[in-house]
């Protein structure tokens, strides 16, 4: 649809063709493109006519008769418009589009008809502030930046976000009052523009209605029980599902009663483990195997030096207290709680143990 406001442009038909150049042919130790005739000037002997030549015609010169506009079926256009209007009434879609409507009292936002009579931009700003729409305009202000690309030297220098649309019924000054506020668009209900209701193709623009504009919607687009009065033979599109709440549908009795029970525990392929390598599996198959294994191990270790003496064993035993194990387990938890549990645990043990646990706590805190 955006293509429809394009203006035709083209390259001059004569561009690059206003020479009588001819190729020099072979045997002259130059490339075979047509070259300009004559002499006495820079231009003589230069290549001409090709898109690769300097001063030549471009590849596929642009023609005015390019198809600039696109015809879209009326029904499709109306369907799109109506969908965009519907989306503007869903707060999550408006938020997702990027408008800040957290301070707006209600969506859809409908103001009294007095809005249509205001003449000063100052009043317009005051209204937007009061209604909670100003934060969206502040977003527009924040988004002003220079356009990327050549457009900046073609009188399209700044770009900014789109703010709210004001949709009115009768313009008694609204348009002029609101039009200088950045980001704001004005639309008459009779002539709604999809390009303004779903900018960039994204539905859910923030819409501010006036009362009479909102009331006119029924007559313009119809309700499902009544056809549109203003448009010939148009009614709102029928939804594909009358009840689109999938969650409730799936939990409904009519569906649940026909389903089989859910398979909560899937029987999956079991990996076969080798009992000769896996001691656990071996013991399950042959309980005596564990005993056998232990005996062989002890026999092998008999008389060998392993490094653990009776004293070192006793010392390790002593270190494995409840408190030290608990401290290891609780490391990283809420600091406040840990000190409490430590003191309570420590109080029940001997004094030597409490000091060791307290130092371990201190080291973790740092």
């Amino acid at each position, binding site marked *: 649809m955006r293509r429809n406001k394009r203006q035709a442009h083209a390259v001059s038909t004569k561009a690059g063709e206003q020479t009588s150049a001819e190729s020099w042919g072979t045997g002259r130790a130059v490339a075979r493109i047509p070259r300009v005739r004559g002499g006495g000037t820079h231009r003589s002997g230069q290549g001409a006519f090709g898109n690769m030549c300097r001063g030549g015609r471009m590849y596929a010169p642009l023609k005015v008769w390019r198809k600039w506009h696109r015809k879209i079926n009326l029904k499709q256009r109306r369907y799109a418009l109506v969908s965009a209007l*519907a*989306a503007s*009434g*869903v*707060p*999550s*879609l408006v*938020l*997702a*589009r*990027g408008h*800040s*409507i*957290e*301070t*707006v*009292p*209600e*969506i*859809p936002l409908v103001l009294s008809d007095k809005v249509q009579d205001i003449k000063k931009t100052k009043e317009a700003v005051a209204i937007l502030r009061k209604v*909670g729409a100003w934060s969206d305009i502040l977003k527009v202000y924040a988004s002003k930046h220079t356009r990327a690309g050549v457009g900046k030297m073609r009188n399209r220098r700044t770009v900014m976000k789109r703010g709210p649309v004001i949709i009115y019924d009768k313009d008694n000054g609204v348009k002029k009052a609101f039009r200088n506020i950045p980001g704001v668009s004005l639309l008459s209900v009779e002539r709604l523009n999809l390009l303004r209701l779903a900018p960039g193709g*994204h*539905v*859910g623009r923030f819409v501010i209605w006036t009362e009479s504009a909102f009331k006119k919607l029924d007559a313009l687009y119809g*309700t*499902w*029980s009544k056809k549109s009065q203003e448009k010939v033979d148009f009614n709102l599109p*029928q*939804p594909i599902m*009358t*009840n*689109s*709440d*999938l*969650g409730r549908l799936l939990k409904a009795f009519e569906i649940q009663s026909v389903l089989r029970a859910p398979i909560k525990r899937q029987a999956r392929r079991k990996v076969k483990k080798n009992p000769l390598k896996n001691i656990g599996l071996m013991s399950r198959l042959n309980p005596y195997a564990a005993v056998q294994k232990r005996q062989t191990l002890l026999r092998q270790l008999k008389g060998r030096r392993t490094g653990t003496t009776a004293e070192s064993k006793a010392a390790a035993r002593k270190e494995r207290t409840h408190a030290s194990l608990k401290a290891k387990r609780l490391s990283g938890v*809420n*600091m*406040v*709680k840990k000190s409490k549990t430590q003191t309570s645990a420590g109080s029940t043990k001997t004094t030597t143990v409490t000091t060791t646990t307290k130092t371990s706590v201190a080291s973790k805190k740092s």
Partner: protein
Amino acid sequence: MVRGRFEQASSHVQWMVIRNSSSFLHKRKLGTLTTEANNLKNRNTFRFNGLIHPKVVGVQTVKDGKGVLFTTGNVKNLKKPLKRFRQVKLSKDSRRTLTSIRRTIRKQRYRKDLKMAALRRASALLRGQRLAAAATTSTSATNTKRSGKSTTSNTGATTSS
């Protein structure tokens, strides 16, 4: 055929609109994330989305202060953004904050599937606050550990206000 009014904007329909194009969507190499306010894991999934569902749970940091802001969605005021959220400031110690969140969700049966996510988020945010406080008091550069969750929650906090 005459049909009555259809309530068409169910959360599933909205999800189909939002799931691939939303101002909060961030598609990057490290995965798809969303920055909407009440998304507990910032994941772009139907379950965790903060915009679509009538019942919604959100946890954010309190700006310039201690504690956590626990948000629940008011189902009655779905279309009234001003009244949509009930926010509670939980600024006592973490044990009380977490039990408060846990109990609200459990006793009201309010989005039980989000309970663990809410607790984890709150716990991570509180941890971040604790570490930040420890960093300022001890003034040692090595202690400034910033968890990724707290930074994303701060951006969430600024957009919601």
